[in-house]
């Protein structure tokens, strides 16, 4: 294969992206391509992108990871609910380690035995899912306001945060919850505003 042909084939992969961007701009009547919206798109794709990179590694290796969604759920529950005991840093490191160990376990099962990746990761999906529910004690999770971006940080993000708040289509929050976070900044008020749970729930500790 000549060099020109190879480079053409490499740029082939950008054609779908260009097509999607053009179509998106057309059907949204030009709103899509505005910088504020592009920032929003990038921000909303960040978590999904990281998960996709992990998935890509597995798929290139000839496998398939069904467990990604529930591993994310497990990590979310782990960070929020171990924060009270070990602090944010401890909870985060613990969640990273737990997800790494879960991935290594399914990797071990896939590579050392002849069980198909589909079955192994299906099992890991169930395990991680139930871990998430156990750790969260079946409650809806309210993220403490100390974890959401501070005002200082969001200024650096091209005021993307105001965009998050103003666009109701990208967040499923009630305006009530938003205002309670703004005024009180406490977990408890948000929790009572969104779920009407009693104070004894683990999230309130």
């Amino acid at each position, binding site marked *: 294969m000549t060099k020109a042909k190879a480079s053409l084939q490499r740029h082939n*992969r950008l054609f779908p*992206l260009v097509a*999607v*961007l053009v179509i*998106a701009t057309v059907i*949204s009547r030009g709103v899509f391509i505005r910088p504020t919206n592009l920032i929003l798109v990038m*921000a909303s794709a*960040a*978590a*999904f*992108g*990281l*998960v*996709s*990179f*992990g*998935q*890509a590694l*597995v*798929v*290139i*290796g*000839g*496998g398939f*990871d069904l*467990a*990604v*969604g529930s*591993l*994310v*759920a497990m*990590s*979310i*529950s782990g960070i929020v609910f171990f924060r009270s005991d070990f602090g944010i840093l401890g909870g985060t490191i613990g*969640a*990273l380690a737990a*997800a*790494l*160990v879960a*991935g*290594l376990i399914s*990797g071990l099962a*896939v*590579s*050392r035995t002849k069980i198909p990746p589909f079955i192994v990761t299906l099992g890991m999906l169930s395990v991680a*899912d139930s871990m*998430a*529910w156990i*750790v969260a004690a079946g409650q*809806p*999770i*309210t993220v403490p*306001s100390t*974890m*959401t*971006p501070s005002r200082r940080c969001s200024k650096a993000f091209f005021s993307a945060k105001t965009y998050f708040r103003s666009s109701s289509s*990208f*967040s499923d929050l009630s305006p009530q919850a938003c205002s309670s976070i703004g005024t009180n900044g406490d977990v408890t008020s*948000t929790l009572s505003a*969104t779920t009407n749970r009693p104070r004894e729930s683990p999230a309130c500790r």
Partner: protein
Amino acid sequence: MIRTKLLCYGLSGFLCAAGAIIYLHQNISATPGEGADLLLSFAATILGGVYMYGGDGTIPGVLVGVICLASNASALTIAGVSPSNYQGVLGVIVLAVVLVQQEYENNTGAAV
């Protein structure tokens, strides 16, 4: 070979937790059943040119796939499509991409 696969799955889990950190940073509430729609990450990898049965694919390609899917969701929202219809549209797109991949492979005899 065995160690590579092991590391792939381990890194996948690790990146899941990293994604969860970013998710927590952006959202104020979540449920323990969060992330069921993250199976679309498989769609993003295929859309990004990763060969479905393994052996070929690049991370920049996957980045392209991710941006494609995210752009779709954004554009459909702005165009006024109900959020409950995203999944259908995305599913159709993924099926089309897989069909094109198969055709390309049949015609050229090589993995895309």
